[in-house]
């Protein structure tokens, strides 16, 4: 029996010839990640059980991105705890205010994660790096502590669902629309415990930023990981970023998939997830009149260069609707710099937006854009659960940067083509 792409990477990291779905294995890790919310819990566990060294100071990343620049004394204490630990153990990839970005935008951008690697992170959106053809999955703080101490983690080998992509996206349709469409189709537990493997001739038409936003939301379908076949786009992206050898794995021709979905990219329309689950999707032509109070453009899902560029393109020479607040958060310092140099920041400010240094902030209702009772936001983030962005009676509508920017201009959920013609 052949192996899926995920199974091949797991087998290699477990030192096994082959693995099958359901098998429990122990894998060597290439990277262990945590942020300012999950790392303090991991550090407490690490210390409590008497560990005194990390397995490899170059293979641990700590990114202070959730409540930074720190929003209150408690979160400042947490970040300080991470900073002290990182200093004590000389952690190479420690990123704090000024050089940090949102973790899942930062690590691929800096080449800290690469194709074929096995990565865990104490953050559910760690599945993002599957866009590079890596096995990457979210875990909790205790797993992070164990990973930091031993360089290993246990996994149950997942079965998989295959998404065979064909065609090309239309203008103003983005990777975000594809993944929202898929989650709407299979549900928030449609891939529970499974891998989502993306391949097919349509892959070449998806940019790396599109793929990163799609892999990012695999967890929103319950998946263990989302992974993309490696092609020229992946290899080109890693040039100048990844300075070490990396390995490209391909699924076997006879790999077993529990289901295969054919997705014609040219048929995907701009898609919005209504409250309070990512699976509650409608295409923009089905939304009706949904008036909004706030727009958030950013996050580990959609704060990358192409996302910010798309929003700027739509806002250029326009102003956001009266009564709407629009917050734009480039996900990393490099994206922020590019936005400044290319004039996108000026476009946003002229349009009446607030622009922030990188932070996860509003996505999880942390800071920088909390909603009041009864308020509605269109956000390029990844979750619209009850209370996610603030008051339990507020609402979050998930959408692409193109839809979010268009909605900010009109003050209601809007299709970008309404504005751009």
């Amino acid at each position, binding site marked *: 029996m052949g192996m899926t792409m995920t199974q091949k990477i797991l087998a290699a990291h477990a030192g096994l010839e082959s693995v099958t779905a359901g098998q*429990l294995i122990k894998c060597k890790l290439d990277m262990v990640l945590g942020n300012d*919310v*999950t790392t*303090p*819990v991991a550090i*407490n*566990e*690490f210390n*409590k*059980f*008497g560990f005194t060294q990390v397995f490899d100071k170059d293979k641990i990343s700590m990114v202070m991105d*959730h*409540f930074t620049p720190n*929003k*209150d004394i*408690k*979160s400042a204490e*947490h970040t300080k705890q991470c900073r002290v630990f990182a200093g004590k153990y000389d952690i190479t990839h420690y990123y704090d205010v000024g050089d940090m970005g949102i973790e899942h935008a930062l690590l691929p951008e800096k080449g800290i994660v690469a194709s074929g690697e096995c990565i865990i*992170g*104490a*953050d*559910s959106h*760690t599945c993002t790096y599957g866009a590079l053809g890596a096995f990457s999955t*979210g*875990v*909790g*703080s*205790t*797993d992070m*502590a*164990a990973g930091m*101490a*031993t360089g290993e983690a*246990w996994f149950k080998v997942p079965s998989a669902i295959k998404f065979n992509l064909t065609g090309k996206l239309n203008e103003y349709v983005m990777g975000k629309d594809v993944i929202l469409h898929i989650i709407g189709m299979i549900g*928030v*537990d449609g891939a*529970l*415990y499974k891998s989502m493997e993306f391949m097919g001739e349509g892959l070449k038409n998806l940019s790396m930023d599109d793929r990163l936003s799609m892999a990012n939301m695999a*967890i929103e379908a*319950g998946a*263990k990981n989302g992974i993309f076949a490696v092609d020229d786009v992946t290899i080109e992206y890693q040039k100048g970023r990844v300075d070490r050898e990396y390995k490209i794995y391909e699924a076997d021709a006879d790999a077993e998939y529990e289901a295969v979905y054919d997705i014609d990219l040219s048929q995907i329309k701009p898609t919005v997830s209504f409250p309070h*689950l990512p699976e509650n999707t409608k295409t923009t032509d089905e939304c009706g009149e949904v008036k909004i109070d706030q727009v958030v453009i950013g996050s580990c899902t959609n704060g990358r260069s192409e996302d910010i560029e798309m929003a700027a393109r739509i806002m250029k020479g326009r102003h956001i609707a009266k009564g709407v607040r629009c917050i734009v958060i480039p996900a990393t310092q490099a994206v922020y710099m590019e936005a400044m140099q290319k004039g996108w920041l000026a476009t946003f400010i002229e349009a009446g937006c607030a622009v922030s240094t990188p932070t996860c902030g509003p996505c*999880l*209702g*942390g800071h920088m854009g909390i909603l009041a009772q009864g308020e509605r936001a269109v956000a390029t983030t990844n*979750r619209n*659960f*009850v*209370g*996610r962005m603030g008051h*339990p009676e507020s609402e979050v509508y998930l959408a692409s940067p193109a839809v979010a920017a268009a909605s900010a201009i009109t003050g209601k959920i809007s299709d970008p083509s309404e504005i751009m013609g």
Partner: protein
Amino acid sequence: MKVCGKVHKYGDNVDTDVIIPARYLNTADHKELAAHCMEDIDTEFVKNVKEGDIMVAEQNFGCGSSREHAPIAIKASGISCVIASTFARIFYRNAINIGLPILECDAAAKGINAGDEVEINFDTGVITNKTKNETYQAQPFPEFIKDIINKGGLLNSLKN
């Protein structure tokens, strides 16, 4: 080992943002987290929960964020076991790693109502609903996971 308690019942897709909202993630203190457990979907939970009580839910319990604060908040609130039809995978891992017993059992999730008195035998996986006089058989843990639990959690199992 057996536990026995009163049931707090929830539906599908109980996510970690409602188990413990992110506005409280600026603390790692177990009691402080427990004080806000479930408050966005059930403001009465914290007032009513008693040591040893049992939480029962349906599909995909614990979906969303990887925050270990979620199983910690549930455990620190006094809950002795969570039963669900299915669990989201990160929550499942985290619960085992921190020593919060969880059982997958669709029949129990469907049969048990809020307020029922339920007894769980972890050795046999038998769940007894004393109020309705019914029993349900849960999936036993694989040996590998039993070993982690028996050794007192993941980190303890690594040290020994």
